[in-house]
Every structure is written in C-alpha cells, then in structure tokens.
C-alpha cells in the first residue's frame, strides 16, 4: 500500500508544479507575451471592440472608426498628412505608429479595474477610448505641404510643456485601402514611406554646435575671446575645413556660432576635453531612451557605443561640429532646441493630451514634467543669444520672421559619399519667451539655411499668429 500512497503523493505534487506553470504564464509573463509581435490578440480584439477615435488638440478628426454598410471602416480624413506617425492597425499587416502603440487605449483595455473588466465581459461589442493628441492640424498641414516632394522630417514642440505640436515625415503614404496598396508602398525602396524620418538617426552637422557650446562653457573658456578663422585648421594632423573654405576672420563665441565656424568649435571642443564634451552630450540625453509614447532610437556619439567613456582627439574634434560618428534623430534635435528655449530644462515629450472614454469623461490627462536639465539658465541664455545672432546676422537668416525675434541654428551634415549635404535647422521663437521649438531636416537638401530654415519659419509663423488661448 505504501507504493500506491507514494505514487498518489507524486501525482499531487506534479499537479502542484503544473499550477505553478499556470501562475508563470498567466500572471508573471502575461504582459510580456501580450507585447510579442506575433501575438494577434490586440488586433483580433478589434472585431469586438469599436476602436476609439484619434483627434488633434482642436478636436479635428485624424482617424475614426465609422460603420458603413454594416462594416467597420477606419476613416482618415487627413490622408497621408499624419503618416507614418499615425501608423495603421490591420489584421493582415500588423500594427505601427500611434494606432499600434496606443492600441490598448484605443481598445479601452488599459488600466481597466476589476469591476470594469467584469462589466466588459457582458457588454460586447463595446466602444474603445478616444485619444486626443497634442498635435495641431494647422501646423501639421503647413509642415506637410512644405516638405512634400522632399525627403525629410519636421518636428515642432511646445518647449514649456513638451507637447508635440507637429510631426511630419516625408515621403509618406495614404492609410486608406492600405491592404490593396501595400505592395506598391513597400516597393518604393528609395522613398521608404513607412519609415518615420523624425525618429531616424542622421549626422547632425553644425546644429550639434549648440550642444558642444555647453562643453565649452563648462571648460571655463572666455566666450568673448577672439579666434582667427582662416578657412581651415589642423588639429592633431586632421584638417578641419570650413564650409566652402570660407574664412571668417576674428570671431568670438557668438559670431562663431552665428557664422557656424567649424574650426572654432573643433579647437575649443578639443581644449574642453572629452570629459566635458561627453558630460554635456549626456545632459542633453544622448545615449538615453527618450521617454515618449512612441519608440525613438537613442542618439549616439560613436558607432560602437551610444555613450562612450572616452573619445580620442580626432574623433572629439569632428564630433564637436557634429560630424565624426555622431548621430541624432530630428525628434531629439527638436527636444534639444526646446531645452535651450525653456531655460535649459527639457520637458518630457508627449503626444497624447488626454484620453476620453465613450461617455467623453476624461480617463487620463497628461501633466507636463521635466525630463532633463541640460543647461543652467545662464548657459541657455548665452546659447540663445548666439542663436539670435545667427538669425539676425548669420547663416540662419532665412529663418527670420518679421516682428518676432527667432533664435536658430543651421546645419549642413555630410552624409558620406558623393551625396549632397543634409540640410538641418533648429529654432525657437519668440526668443525672449519661446512658445514653439522646431527641428527640420531635408535629406540631401543642401544647406540648412536654404533647405530647412524656410520650412521651420512657416511652421513658427503659423503657430505664433494664433492668439494666446486660441485653439
């Protein structure tokens, strides 16, 4: 009888192990598996849940599910203007963008309480939550029209809150009838319309100089000291050229940034040393995951490590004016501009303003919160003043707006190979009390002043022409 008892005991024990297995999958691993890209749960849930709408800050419809002839159809009245940011959600194609990342909100299954969960079991089909974005369709439309036909991205942020006001990437695609047009969209290998260029890494070129500025200040250099620009200089055997070999003569910090003097920043960058440079880029968020509703690749200093512990002199000299191996996303560059505008504090970026349930009650509301303190107030003021000079008397002149003081910085980044430079531009305005910060890149567009600054100017002009409180 002992044998039978032991076998019975072994059976009971095995059942216990089995129940631990259930705990592991249903409790410990539940959320991880939900996020697995092969898991079609969220997409299949749509058959039962009417997906919530997506609206801009003024209540304009960006995407909404409507019932046409008994079939649910996702209507996107703005066409390709919000793509690829908006993304898509399709049983066949999977998900991307806001439609994908905010699916739990749009389907109304995030943070459901136990009572809500039980209610949901008996209330099918049900309505998902509506998401109100911080985007402004008017700014989005201006940025979209300005970039159309080019390859590039534009990001506008409210520096006081971190709210994303516009985010455009071109070329994009029309989200209606996506399944039918899919083959055509993915066959455009040069245009890559599915890629959000605002989140893509590019060499920053001279826009990096605003970041390097922080390293210069912290190494204790006197910004009024003069430096003679001769068109090129040699540091540790490496020749640093000005754009088009232009000589600027005697320049101080302000003029060096305004005229975008490479030799000045390379020389003083090397003097400041790699410790100061790396600590400055770190305080701007390089090598860090940006806290945002969508995934943004972290910006990086070298190809090997996003945040290396040291840099050799040649690489430091090149990095100081945004070449070498430095790579930044336009989105991060907009945050950097916003940080300078907001007296050195970068606010946590966000694109969701609030979430409303089907009865239009607020379920979630975003509150502004600081992300990083990149600069002290004094440092931010110094960079702002140099960026103002760049607009009034420097390379950023095409970004100027009548009657409003703009602060800006251009960049022309060499992508490597025989290609035209990427035109970069970051700016904010009004310089004395900034309400908008913008970053624009035009791939192979030439100079920042020529290609990118006019686009940023149009966006800022529209934003600032709106009265205070005008939504």
């Amino acid at each position: 009888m002992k044998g039978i008892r032991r076998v019975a005991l072994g059976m009971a024990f095995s059942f216990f192990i089995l129940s631990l297995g259930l705990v592991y999958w249903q409790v410990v691993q539940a959320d991880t598996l939900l996020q697995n890209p092969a898991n079609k749960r969220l997409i299949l849930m749509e058959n039962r849940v009417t997906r919530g709408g997506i609206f801009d800050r003024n209540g304009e419809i960006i995407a909404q599910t409507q019932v046409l002839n008994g079939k649910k159809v996702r209507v996107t009245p703005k066409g390709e203007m919000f793509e690829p940011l908006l993304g898509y959600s399709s049983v066949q194609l999977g998900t991307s963008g806001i439609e994908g990342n905010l699916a739990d909100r749009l389907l109304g299954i995030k943070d459901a309480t136990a009572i809500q969960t039980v209610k949901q079991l008996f209330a099918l089909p049900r309505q998902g939550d509506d998401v109100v974005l911080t985007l402004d369709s008017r700014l989005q439309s201006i940025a979209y029209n300005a970039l159309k036909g080019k390859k590039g991205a534009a990001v506008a942020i409210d520096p006081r809150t971190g709210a994303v006001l516009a985010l455009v990437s071109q070329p994009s695609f029309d989200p209606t009838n996506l399944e039918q047009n899919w083959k055509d969209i993915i066959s455009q290998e040069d245009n890559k319309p599915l890629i959000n260029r605002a989140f893509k890494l590019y060499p920053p070129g001279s826009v990096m100089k605003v970041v390097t500025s922080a390293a210069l200040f912290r190494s204790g250099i006197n910004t009024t000291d003069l430096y003679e620009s001769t068109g090129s200089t040699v540091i540790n055997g490496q020749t640093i050229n000005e754009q088009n070999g232009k000589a600027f003569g005697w320049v101080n910090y302000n003029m060096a940034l305004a005229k975008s003097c490479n030799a000045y920043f390379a020389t003083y960058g090397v003097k400041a040393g790699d410790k100061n440079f790396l600590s400055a880029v770190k305080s701007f968020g390089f090598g860090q995951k940006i806290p945002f509703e969508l995934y943004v690749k972290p910006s990086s200093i070298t190809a090997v490590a996003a945040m290396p512990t040291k840099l050799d002199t040649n690489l430091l000299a090149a990095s100081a004016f945004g070449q070498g191996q430095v790579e930044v996303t336009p989105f991060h560059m907009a945050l950097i501009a916003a940080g300078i505008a907001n007296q050195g504090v970068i606010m946590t970026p966000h694109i969701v303003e609030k979430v409303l349930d089907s009865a239009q009650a607020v379920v979630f509301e975003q509150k502004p919160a600081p992300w990083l303190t990149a600069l002290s107030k004094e440092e931010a003021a110094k960079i702002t003043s140099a960026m103002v000079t760049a607009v009034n008397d420097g390379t950023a002149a095409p970004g100027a707006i009548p009657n409003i003081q703009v602060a800006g910085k251009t960049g022309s980044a060499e992508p490597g190979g025989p290609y035209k430079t990427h035109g970069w531009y970051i700016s904010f305005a009004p310089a004395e009390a900034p309400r908008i910060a913008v970053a624009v890149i035009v791939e192979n567009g030439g100079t920042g002043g020529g290609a990118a600054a006019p686009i940023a100017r149009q966006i800022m002009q529209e934003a600032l022409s709106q009265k205070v409180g005008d939504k």
Partner: protein
Amino acid sequence: MIQRLITRMIIVGMMWLGLSLLKWEALSTQLLMQALVFTAIVLLGSLMEQILHYQGDPYILPVVQAIMAIGLVFVVRINQALPDNPGNHNIALHQFWWANIGLVVFYAILWGMQDYRKLGRLRYLWGLLAVGLLMVTLVFGSTTGGATSWLSLGGIVVQPEEFVKLALLLFMATYLEENEELLRVGTVQWGKFSLPDWRTLGPFMIMVAFILGILAAQKSLGTALVFYMLFVLMLYAVTERALYLGISLPIFLLTGTLGYQLFRHVRVRVMVWMNPWQDVAGGGYQIAQSLFAISGGKILGTGLGNGIGASTVPVAISDFVFSVIAEELGFAGAMAVLMLFLIVVLRAFAISLKTKDRFGQILAAGIGILLGTETLIILAGVTKLLPLTGITLPWVSYGGSSVIVHFILLGVLLNISNANAVSSHTTKNKGRECAT
C-alpha cells in the same frame, strides 16, 4: 438523496448556463435535444443510484460529470470558432452523442458487471488484444497530424490507441497480481540487486517493447509516453521497489536520446520546446499560440466566448482545449479544472486503498495512474513545461473514442468501489447479526 440530486442539478445547470452564454440562436435544435438527453441521463442516473443503493465513492462521478459538462461547453464554444465548412458543422453534436453514449456505457458497466475479478481471467489475451489493435492501426490506419492513429470502420473513425489503454491496463493488473511476489523479491542476484528471472519478466518486457515500438512507428509519441509512465508507475506502486524507478530513468533517457538522434520529428519537437519564439510562424506556431491564449486569460479570464485561442490555436478542440479554457476562464477557471482532475485521480487511489482484493487494488490504482499521467502530460505540454506530445485531455477534448474509453475506465473504477463497499457493508451486518 436530496444532496445527490442537487449536486447533479448544479452540474447540468452549469452546462446550460455555459451554453446560454454562447450564442443560443447558433445552436441547432438537434444539439439542444442532445443536451436535454445528457441532462436526463445525469439526473435519472442519480435517481438510479439511489434506488439501486450505490455505495461506492460518492465524489468521483459528480466530478467527472462536471468535467464532462465543462468539456461539452468548450467543444461547442470552439466549434463555433472553426471555419464554416461542412466537416465542422456537427462536431459539437457528435461530442454530445459520445458523452451520452459514454454515460450509458458507464452505468451499464457499473450495474451490469457482476464481478470485476473475472476481467483478470483473460490474462495475456488482453496483452495480445492491445498489440493486435495497434498492429491493425499501423497497417490500415490513416495518418493525421503526423501520427498514424486513426482507423476507419464503416464511416466511424476510431482511435484504437484509446481502447488499447483499457486492454493494457487489464493486462498489467493481471500480470502484476500474478507475479507480484517474484517481482518484489527477485530470484536472480545481479551484483547488489536481486532481479526477477527471465521467465517472470520476459513476457512483460516483450510486451512493453512491442507496444512502445509500434507507437513509435506510428509517431504517437504522446501515447507512448503515457504507456511508459503507466508501466513504470504501476510496477513501482505494486512492488514498492525504487529499483524499478531507478532502472526506468536511464532506459527512458537512452531511448529518448536515440529517438532524438534518429528521427527528425523528435528533434523538431525538442527544439521547438526549447525555444518556440525562434520560429513563431513555423514550428513554434502551435505552442506560441497556445501560450498567447493562456497568458491572455490572466487571473479571471476573458470570459466565455471572448478569447482568441479558439480560432488561433491549431487543434484547439482536442489537444489544446485546455489553452482555450485557461484563456476564457482565466487562472481561476484553469485551477478549478486542474483541481477537478486531481480529485478524480486521488479518489481513484483512495478506492484502491479501500479495496480488499489485490487485483481490484492494482486495477484501481492503474486507472488513477493512467488518468493522472494523461492529464499531466498534455497540460504540461500546452504550458511548455514539457515538450508537446499530442494526446487528449480526458472527457474534455473532442473525440468519441477517448470519451467512451474514459467512461469505461470510470465504470470499472466505480464498480470496484461499489462492490467493495457493498461487501464490507454486508459483512459488517453479518457480524452484527452474529453478535445479536
């Protein structure tokens, strides 16, 4: 009496509640008729138990009926999610037929079988029957899902493996009862261990090798594993010699390694088990979908009919039925089902311990071991605790052969329980008569 009836009413009530939560209008009248028949059999059965003075284990049958009811609800549920083609229309209806036939067969065995000890008289014939059934399947069977385990008999497709379980169990019980002493003590000294001689062990070993060999040839790895566990655990339970467990482990590892080296499908199984995420669209699809379904259930489940597993998990209706249960009823429901099975298994052992004759003891324990290993192997498979080997979950998975064979096993088990309770009752009364 009242209690017995109320329990059954709760069980069938549960089934009707489940069916009504699924779409009523989608259920055919035929199916509802069969559900009524099921209700009638369950309730009449409980009355009959009263009238015929059933005195066996009072827990097992209601628990199995509860498992059956849950199984029926989920077969209906999964049936609704299957693609709309003629072959799928009557799946749930068939399961109701099998459940009803199974219950009737169960009662027939419970009341009809005069003396279960007579089952032992056929001795080796049971073994030959088992081998014969498997051979016929291997030669004439049809292959589905990689395994050759179905046999078509005049329009009805049977899975002989299920019936082999019964034959094998009876063979094992007969053999072990007959040779218990020899197996326990051993007659041949081999080093420190005394082993039984070849004449005792020979027929058994040949039978085991034969049966496992045929199953391997059919690629029915799951059933082979169940049988291997059945052989080893029954041998241990009867002889109480840890030596047999000790020997079985290296044999298992050796054949396992050999199978791994020789057969591609075994390698694929193991590889998929170790990392299903590597090839989620290919080999890992089944287990990944199962885990997606299970994990989606969380604590309270998605609610009956709300899960995705029923349509995304391949063969959800048979091998993977538990994944759908765990998803739609959640951890709470899955644990409840697990507990129901544990009750059945442990009560089977309890019956074994109460039984007076050795053959009955061994047979009852064998039924407990069989039900326990089947449940453990398939549930460990769908939760990725063990490599996946497709077998049915007793009474829950779709399949006529499985349902009927498990009701036959239940009939035998409760017949043993009832017979012993009645005899002890009468002996007690007899004793009292003497005293007065």
